[in-house]
């Protein structure tokens, strides 16, 4: 089997160690003898919507986010929408999550238009929401770290990724974290997210492989270290919040 991953704006949106997600998707595939290819797509590069099974879209600084929003207008947005129609899986974190929604409205300055793959919008908040988080989802408990000031609100087409047990979540108001719409996932979960949440990682891998191969089963891995990291992080989240 073969998996094609597209790392969106890896050179611009790569803070908070989000590359850990790419490393994890790659290694967990290779350990199962699934061939993996990661393609970096940034400003000015074209996207072939039929090529990639899984897209990762991370977080960045404000200035870079403007550059990315600008580049996403027109052709690239259309390509991403086509990719979703063809069954591609998206994982977006923080800035990437905001840009997959309809728009981001800053305090001052022009509104950033998003791709609209998620029925969600984000407005700038006055407080930075920082800390360890625990989220209860249908793929089990996720443990991570949030650091954002944008507040995201979901429309009727998207459902939350999960319920915040510890942490502020999407907007520090409704108690929910992230968004899911079809195969498009968005969240504020750094940490990195995937290395210590292996059940969720494998769910994304299965969804992505399904595009080419139909329903697949993944061979089990020894995840004792992943779960040790997961449990220690949960303990820290409970101790610190």
């Amino acid at each position: 089997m073969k998996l094609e991953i597209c790392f969106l704006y890896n050179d611009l949106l790569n803070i908070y160690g989000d590359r850990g997600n790419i490393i994890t998707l790659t290694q967990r595939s290779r350990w199962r003898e699934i061939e993996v290819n990661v393609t970096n797509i940034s400003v000015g590069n074209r996207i072939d919507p039929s090529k990639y099974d899984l897209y990762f879209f991370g977080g960045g600084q404000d200035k870079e986010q403007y550059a990315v929003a600008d580049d996403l207008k027109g052709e690239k947005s259309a390509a991403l929408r086509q990719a979703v129609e063809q069954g591609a899986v998206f994982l977006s974190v923080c800035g990437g999550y905001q840009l997959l929604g309809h728009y981001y409205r800053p305090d001052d300055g022009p509104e950033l238009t998003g791709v609209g793959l998620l029925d969600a919008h984000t407005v700038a908040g006055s407080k930075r929401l920082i800390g360890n988080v625990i989220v209860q989802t249908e793929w089990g408990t996720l443990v991570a770290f949030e650091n954002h000031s944008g507040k995201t609100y979901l429309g009727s087409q998207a459902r939350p990724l999960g319920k915040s047990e510890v942490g502020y979540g999407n907007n520090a108001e409704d108690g929910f974290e992230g968004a899911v719409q079809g195969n498009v996932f968005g969240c504020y979960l750094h940490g990195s997210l995937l290395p210590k949440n292996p059940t969720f990682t494998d769910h994304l891998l299965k969804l992505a492989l399904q595009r080419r191969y139909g329903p697949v089963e993944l061979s089990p891995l020894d995840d004792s270290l992943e779960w040790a990291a997961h449990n220690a992080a949960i303990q820290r989240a409970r101790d610190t919040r």
Partner: protein
Amino acid sequence: MRQTLAIATGKTLLEILHRTGRGGTAFPGLVASKMDPHILRALTARLPSGSAMVIGTNGKTTTTRLVATILTKAGIKIANNRSGSNLIRGLTSTLLAQASLKGRLQADMGLFEVDEAAFPQAQLEIAPRLILLNNLFRDQLDRYGEVDTVRRRWAETIKKLIPGTTLVLNADDPSLAYLATLAPAGVKAVFFGLDSPANTLPVLAHATDAAKCIICGADLVYDAIYISHMGHYACPTGHFSRPVPDFVAREIKLDGTNGSRFELQTPTGPLSLELGVPGLYNVYNATGAAAATLTLGIAAQHIQAGLADFKSAFGRIERIALSDNRHLLLALVKNPVGFNEVLRMLTTEPGNQLKLLVAINDLYADGRDVSWLWDVDFEQLAGRVEWVRTAGLRAPDMANRLKYAGLAPELLNWEIDLTTALRQAIDRLPSGQTLYVTPTYTAMLQLREILQKMGLVVPFWEE
């Protein structure tokens, strides 16, 4: 009256803390500056030779100590914050400890290491005659914010500097070269940098922040990359390029974890320098310290003596003797660039496969977000490691990171408790060999305390 009372209270608190054997350095300064918000200004204004300040993400403690050692060699009496307490309250405590009850200091000059976030306020209060800017990297995003945010904050301070101030800047860091262009007329900019074809990196590392033109956003073009985004760069459309440095380190010879030697080209001729601390990043620190002190008018012989005699700042790089001709090398890690440079130094160390203890805490001073571990290129350890033990509050996270970096799980072991982890690591260390220990800040403090109980190191406030 208010000032006198603030000084008296601060000094009394310092005395009590010292007598009860606690090394806490910031608290008395915090209390005194609550009582008199301009206490720092009042204390530093009385220093006859003014003050100098060191700012940067990495290496500021070491650089400050290098400058202090050189100034002391030159017979200048300095007031400085030695224990790495670099927020406003720490600076205040430092000066209180050295001031008389009337607020007089027994020093010629102030020398301060200042936290990135405290720079604007510290600059206003202290009004230093010289500011040494080392580098700007991503660091503890939950505390400092993004690199752009820090650079903007620094830019505001630089724009308001008073004429007569001297900036000593690392020309190899694009952010700092850009900041120098913002300084008002009458502020002098002195640059230092490296010229060392033998020590370049083939490509920009993953965790690189400032490799784009700050004006147009284009990717900078590099002739040489030394550390992260530091090197010889230019904007492809000509917006800006590396300034020609006044002080250049050349002919750099690195000697593993022992030290290095290099030649410093200066406006008045070359200087041959020997440095007692290892790694290319310390060559940067030493070059900055030499450029700053030469600019202050210190004679070359004191610079040579100061760099050669220098003992590392506590925990930054420390070699501790164990029984059986074994050693422990402690190297502080704080952020991706710093960790990458430590790994680069360890993997070029000749000899056996590495035995490592990586201690990661996630307390406030460490950065509560451990995401940064995924920005460090641990992949370079593959094939160079005999075993790694991870320790601290995020020991399993760290072990998991190493697993995903391609290290075989059977080489990895984790243990949250630092005492147990350290004991076990020392027990496993064969005679004549070195255990390399890379802790985050609070893990380093704890490990030092454990080593102190074992009778191996002295408490840092006695140094």
